[in-house]
């Protein structure tokens, strides 16, 4: 068990390391560096040389990678190309805002998805299932900026119920984001609910068709007891991985939603940094998001392993 755990942690760490190499190498290989971006494209000659000297860009790439990576491990990502501000400070608030958005969306989406998934799974092919399954296809396939635009049009422009844009500044306390955060949360929760619902539904259907459930029915166990005691613990296990993937998607893929709603999160900062070619900031955000992605998936894998008796014994036997 412990060996399995260590192996998974090691693989996760390796993945993060490869990501850091890809990010660093990517920026190296692409034409232009922090200095050409900072001094505009015409930068040539002495000015460029001085800038490179000051930024330490003349040193070998391996040396700079080690310096960058060891800084990143300590939470120090250096300074931004525009304005020379500490990246850790710039990113801090934005990361908190994105997390706030993600947690609100998860708080709404996960319970709703599990509830609807179980209901549609148990009532397979009945009207309630057809309705929510169709709605889920719509919610997960329509691009986020489209559903966001439609929701703003309906709830903000026509009905005037909710604010359609976030005007709170990045550093404001979390409570000030309400009620502006509600529409972005609804859009995110919609997509998330759809994905998790489909997973839970198919897994409930599969479990309910199992022999031990048939056995329980024949034995005369009350229906609700079958559902809650026998079926759900098994049916919800695969949902953990989908929730993990959704969390990862929330942190990286909300870029478009943050732009639509003008939400001061990590995603919008990323777009701004890419447009400004502020490469140190892009590198930092990429590494943070990738680390979160790996971490969340790792947690989900380990949780599934601990909660699934079969995998548990398998792991025990393996070690």
């Amino acid at each position, binding site marked *: 068990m412990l060996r399995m755990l260590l192996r998974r942690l090691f693989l996760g760490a390796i993945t*993060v390391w*490869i*990501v850091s190499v890809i990010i660093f190498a990517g920026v190296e290989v692409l034409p232009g560096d922090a200095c050409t971006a900072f001094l505009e494209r015409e930068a040539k000659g002495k000015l460029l040389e001085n800038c490179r000297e000051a930024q330490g860009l003349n040193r070998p790439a391996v040396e700079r990678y080690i310096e960058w990576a060891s800084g990143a491990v300590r939470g120090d990502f250096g300074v931004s190309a525009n304005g020379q501000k500490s990246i850790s400070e710039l990113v801090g608030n934005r990361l908190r805002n994105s997390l706030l958005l993600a947690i609100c969306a998860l708080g709404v989406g996960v319970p709703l998805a599990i509830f609807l998934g179980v209901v549609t799974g148990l009532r397979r092919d009945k009207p309630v299932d057809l309705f929510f399954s169709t709605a889920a296809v719509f919610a997960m396939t329509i691009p986020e900026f*489209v559903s966001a635009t439609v929701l703003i049009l309906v709830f903000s422009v026509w009905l005037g119920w909710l604010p359609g844009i976030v005007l709170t500044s990045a550093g404001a306390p979390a409570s000030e984001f309400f009620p502006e955060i509600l529409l972005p949360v609804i859009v995110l929760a919609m997509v998330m609910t759809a994905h998790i619902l489909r997973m839970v539904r198919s897994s409930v259907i599969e479990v309910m068709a199992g022999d031990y459930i048939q056995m329980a029915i024949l034995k005369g166990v009350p229906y609700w007891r079958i559902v809650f005691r026998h079926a759900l613990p098994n049916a919800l296990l695969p949902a953990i991985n989908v929730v993990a993937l959704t969390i990862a998607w929330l942190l990286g893929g909300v870029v478009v939603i943050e732009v639509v709603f003008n939400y001061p999160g990590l995603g919008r900062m990323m777009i701004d940094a*890419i447009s400004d070619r502020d490469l140190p900031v892009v590198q930092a955000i990429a590494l943070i998001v*990738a680390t979160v*992605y*790996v971490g969340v998936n790792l947690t989900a894998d380990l949780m599934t392993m601990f909660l699934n008796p079969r995998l548990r014994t398998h792991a025990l036997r393996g070690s």
Partner: protein
Amino acid sequence: MTEITATRTENTRLQRIGAVLRDVMARPSGAIGLTLVVLHLVLAIVSPWIVPYDYKAMDSLQMLKPPSGAHWLGTDHLGRDVLTRTLMGGREALLVTGIATPIAVIWGGFVGIFFGLVGGRLDEVLMRVVDAFLSLPWILKMLVLIVTFGTGIEVLIPTLAFFYGIPVIRIARAATHDVVARDFVSAARARGHGRITIIRRELLPNVLDTLMVEGAMRWSWMLLAFSSLSFLGFGVSPPTPDWGLMIADGRGLMSFAPWGVLAPVVALSSLIIGINLTADALAKALGIDRAQKAPV
């Protein structure tokens, strides 16, 4: 003798395609989905000849006009006909994704099958690199390349094809692992066939179904990515009509002129939903469970 067998397999293959197509059309989702997709493809091809106006013709006297007899879906902030621009707004997206999707599936599929068959240390390393690429948000990877090299289709097609092929590697590899342990692959090995022959004759036919469904899904995700990029201003450049760009342009004027946003919204949504419904029906017709697919 050999010729007879060859024509027979040819026949069954055609029959199978026919049977799968009939199965797809027999399902409500497949019938609706395929109809939507075909409709969009036909419109994308014929739209330049059937649209009522020039897509870039501006008319300062007809700005933000509501739907009328002259302009069925109204006009935008530059007085351009919304119907014309909506009908033509999918051409660029379908062209780019239509070329990039097959490339992505083919290269990702081959790499996945090859390493699924070979396995070993190299396979282990490759999977870590694939994981690393997947852990970076798609929009970051694409935007960095687009900002560096420009937004033309000569940049967008290879970029989309490259990044959307990476998840295909994983799917193809997993599907190959399911097949590789079977007896007919061992038999082919025992007969002394090389890797290429085994891939072509034993693995590919068995993995093809999975790749087809995967391709359909990649297509819809790619369209989503493409229109999102246009929406953010990194895709199609004006005045070329594009749904994502039209939604971005019309958003600020939504309270006065909602038709400018709703028309491209309906067009884009119907295409993406059509592809997804088709993919769903195709997966069911081929007997591949797609419910466990992750939102990558």
